[in-house]
């Protein structure tokens, strides 16, 4: 497994608050990496820095050996980085199909792709997440679950190599959540993507993740297989709490 993304000593401060402190980790190709930590630990900041919305104060991000530290979000999207948002952010005035078509058009460069090709591509991704019948409905009229799926379709349509998933389970009922998990597993299998998954629901990560990184106060607490991480004293202390298994 080759290295896909490499983060070296990333630091990000907001005024006096250190959100991410000297964080280093790697993501290998084809794995699912879970990313956990208590609220305010800096998880979303890490994703924002990695996807280019925030500039790190120091440190380096490398993707496939290319230094992407100073790249803008759209350049990173062309490199093969995609993300979903914690709170769905669809294009409210566009239909589901057009929203996905935009990312098929603008994502990773595809040679000689016409508008119609992009529409066909977008239809495929919508079908994949199960929104085919809703393709002509404005995104603002979709339900919460459908918005989540639309986000996923939009992220997949850029043909990413690495997908950041920011709390896909939040606000979904158990049935929808299990659907979402199955979809993500299928997406990983079919499109050959690598997944970096922020999640609060430990049971999901225990099952899906190959490796988990736990952070607190912007510093890495522990890294390893799910079993190693959940049995780590520091992680239990900071995040999981004793007896978490009875609730998980």
């Amino acid at each position, binding site marked *: 497994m080759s290295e896909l993304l490499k983060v070296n000593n990333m630091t990000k401060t907001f005024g006096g608050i250190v959100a991410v402190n000297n964080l280093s980790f790697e993501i290998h190709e084809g794995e699912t990496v879970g990313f956990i930590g208590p609220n305010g630990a800096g998880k979303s900041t890490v994703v924002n820095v990695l*996807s*280019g*919305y925030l500039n790190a104060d120091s440190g380096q991000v490398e993707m496939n050996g290319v230094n992407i530290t100073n790249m*803008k*979000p*759209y350049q990173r*999207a*062309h490199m093969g980085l*995609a*993300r979903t*948002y914690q709170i769905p*952010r*669809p*294009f*409210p*005035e*566009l*239909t589901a199909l*057009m*929203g996905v*078509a*935009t*990312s098929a*058009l*603008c*994502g*990773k460069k595809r040679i000689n792709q016409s*508008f119609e090709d*992009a529409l066909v591509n977008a239809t495929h991704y919508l079908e994949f997440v199960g929104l085919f019948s809703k393709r*002509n*409905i*404005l995104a603002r009229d979709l339900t919460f679950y459908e918005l989540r799926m639309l986000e996923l379709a*939009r*992220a997949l*349509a*850029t043909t990413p190599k690495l997908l950041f998933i920011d709390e896909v389970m939040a606000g979904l009922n158990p049935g929808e959540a299990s659907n979402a998990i199955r979809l993500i597993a299928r997406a990983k299998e079919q499109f050959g993507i690598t997944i970096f998954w922020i999640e609060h629901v430990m049971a999901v990560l225990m099952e899906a993740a190959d490796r988990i990184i736990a952070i607190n106060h912007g510093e890495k607490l522990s890294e390893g297989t799910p079993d190693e991480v959940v049995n780590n004293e520091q992680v239990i202390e900071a995040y999981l709490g004793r007896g978490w298994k009875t609730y998980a």
Partner: protein
Amino acid sequence: MVDFELKRDRITIRLKGKKWEWIIEPRYWRNSILWVTLLLIFPAAAYFISPGLINTMISANLLAAIAMPMALMTLGTGRVNFGPNFFVGVGGYTAALLSIAYGWSPLATLPFAIIVTLFTAILYSPLVIVARGLYYVLLSLLLPFVFFEVTIIYTDIFKGDTGLFGIKPLLDLGNARINFLVIAYISIVIMVLFLWIINKVVKSRYGLIMAAINDDEEVAHGIGVNINKVKIISFVFSAGMIGVAGWFYAHYFSSFAGQTYLTFTFMLKIFLAMMIGGRTTIFGCVVGGYFVAFLEMILIRTMGPIQAVVFPVILIILLFALPEGLFGIYRKRRYREYFPTIHVRR
């Protein structure tokens, strides 16, 4: 001979065993040939009935020709520019000054009017990236007024107090009425050309990308849209189109004054043509342009001096009564049309 029959949903016309049917159904009205024909017939008809209408029609066409690029600009930058008349001023003053100083004909000043407007727009375009929301509104609103002040301060060049006179007229065919008629057709050509270009742009992939920027800039950036490029290009491109309208005004009236084009009244007319027609549906801009121009004409004829107060009041009431615009009455809600409505951002 010709037999008209109005059945429930269709008009049947019979002539010597031949039969034409026209179904009265709004979606069949979306026929570009029909509307362009009507547009072309109108000035010719007005020429015989009431030549004054031609004048109103020219101003309607120009309002539409400013409102449409303005709608494109709003869509592509995701912000509402409150000072589109600034570009009218730039284009108009360029044409006017060149024509007066060097005696150039309208055709010679046109490229310069466009180039200078484009150049000004490029200088002004970083604002699209830097400012957003209320700050953008304020800054864009201020610019025409600043330009107006400049024309008054440097009054020896711009003649800010009296206006520039002696610009070469757009056409000189000898007969004033025929002049008017031909100018009306030129304005129609400009308007229809703008409509065609902007419709093409909006229906293409670039229109979709612009719509995405209009909806959520950050997300569009995240899925791979080079938002700065798209915003600047759509800003500069539309500004150039608006500059053409300024050029037309200067040569049409043979005079150009900041008092007319750089003030709030003119801005309001453009803005309302855009909003009343149907919230940036570009076809709505044409409807809005005609509505605003003809309403103004009717009010001037019937009300006299009080129209200056009544006109904006009527328009503002209409804005509340028809939030989706005149075009919206017909359009209702069509999911398949992805051209978005605009939101005035925080």
